[in-house]
């Protein structure tokens, strides 16, 4: 191998991609919320989503 450092770097990149797949990493923005009360099942409307509660105009025609 003429470029051992690059080859090692490449193998690390491949390992990173494999690990990311195994762990199920994602680039999607998701908020992790702790301790959501169990009452949400009985009263879903009481839960305030991080993303909810504001008007969105979607560029419709």
């Amino acid at each position, binding site marked *: *191998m*003429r*470029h051992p450092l*690059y*080859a090692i*770097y*490449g193998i690390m*990149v*491949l390992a*990173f*991609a*494999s690990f*990311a*797949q*195994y*762990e*199920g*990493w*994602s*680039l*999607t*923005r*998701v*908020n*992790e*919320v*702790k*301790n*959501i*009360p*169990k009452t*949400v*099942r009985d009263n*879903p*409307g009481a*839960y305030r*989503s*991080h*993303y*909810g509660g504001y008007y*969105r105009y*979607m*560029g*419709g*025609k």
Partner: protein
Amino acid sequence: MSQPAVNCPNCGAVVRFRWSGAVQTTCEYCRSILVRRDLNLEKVGEVGDLPREVSPIQIGTEGIFHNKAFQVVGRILYEYEDGGWNEWHIVFNDGVSGWLSDAQLEYTVSFLIKPPEVLPSADQIARARLFFWGGVRYEVTSVTRAHYRGVAGELPFEYWDKKDLVFADLRTADARFGTIDYSEAVPLLFLGEAVEFDDLHLKNLREFDVVGAAGQMAKTAVSGLNCPSCGAPLTLSAAGHSLSVVCGQCHSILDAKDPNLQVIEKFEAKQSIKPVIPLGSRGKVEGTEYDVIGFQVRSTDADDMPDSWDEYLLFNRYKGFRYLTLYNGHWNYVKTVPASPERIQVGKKPGAKLMGHTYVLFDTELATTTYVLGEFPWRVHVGEKNGTKDFIAVPRILSCEISEQETVWSLGEYMTGAQVWQAFQLPGQPPPAEGIFANQPAPFAGKASSMWRVCLNLLSAVILLAIIVYMVAGQESVFRHQYSFSPRSGAEASFVTDTFEVKGHPSNVEIAIHTDLRNNWAYFGMALINESTGQGYDFGREVSYYTGDDGEGSRNDSVIVPSVVPGRYYLRVEPEMDKNAQSMVYTLEIKRSVPSAAFFWIAAVLLLIPPALTTWRAAKFEGQRWSQSDFSHRDESDS
């Protein structure tokens, strides 16, 4: 080879013939020139005094050419205004006879052949004339008017009283060689090739005042003299080869061929220049020892920017002359090439082809000799101007020097200062290299292409990995249900789904939304909630779909929630639409362990960065290199 013996008709000594086909020989005792007449020998003349022997070859020397053994049996010595050369008559074991030429220790082997066409007469032959024989382009590189100086040994013809003669030397782009010999009424053609000293495997060589094999000279082969102008001591290391010697004290240029060292000219030097490699130094380059015997400074004033470089002349008494050039700390080891490179076009640039290598024109200059020191095998003259053209094929540089008398091609190979310092065992540090030189090897050039090959292999591995991941990924559907939503109903929009089991190791979960939207939008505020721990992943997705000429969007969308630990989960969903919109039917589908192409793309980009960076650095280096050439952007815009 048979060795018949007869008696010399002049002195009676035994004359032995090494070659039965010899027509003429010389008596080693009385130096009579003897010609065969039937069974007898006739004396036709006497060998005169020959100049000092400087060729390592002698009668009796044996060698190998193209795997065939030969022996030197005779010699003709020629002289011309600027020197002389030997034509050694060689006879191979199979009786074939040829000629080994030694001109200033540059060697060629050639054979008499029948000319493929009628050869031009001596007054019609001129430099640069081309011949095409057997598909090979021969160019006349020099026409020399020489005179016979002496003969020795056995020759295939009578040759002893000829006077002025014309010889035209021909070269090819692949070091083939030819001579048109005008010593007879009908011109003779000799064709052969240039050969390196080592390739001839010569033995029984002449022993000078030193003992040792080629490249291992003892330090005694010099002539000590004094300058006739100022009396300063002079050294002639290449006596017999040198034509000029320059006194370092008074700057007199002396005729090295003259026993009295006649002063040819004196030059004015603003200051004495001390070569960084002292004259007389001995070093080993490419396995051969060379003495530094001469030094000159040459300059140009291209673009009104005075510039100069140093040239060191190296000498080995078996292998001849080589050069070391120095410019801004950049060195080149140079030797003249016994060839006439073919002029070609390389893209938009002029080029030259030599020994299978293609060279690209780099620059054209007018070089002026401004300072000289030591000895030279040509008549040096301060103020002498020569046109030069440099062609490059990194790390080599092919230079063409054009004077009124001749065109000389030489081939250089880049050396670092450290290599030169090591070769000559010089103290201290070499001058630091500044800028980028024409044929300086690019530190990244070779690396870039080989790095791209490694990159290709790694990218193939990424693709293979992606295929495997997509093949083995579970993508297990853990939940699927259809819902409807009507914004006009005014009812609470949010709801929770039934719980579902997410299994396996921590991995991702994909939530896909499939709607029947048409010219409308919807927003889904969602939370994936672990029933037992209360841990949730909160996210929102927008779905919009419009038809028409400039339609856009999609009815479907998905989101991947990363690293979800196993457990029982449910979704809290809060759809939202325009208050006046029609109702929507949508399906939510949840899958476990879904492969993501994003990380393979990221890996590919990460793998591309190092070779791309290396290529960029190599391109930048080449840009800086060519900015010094005739083809820089500045010159192109000027023209």
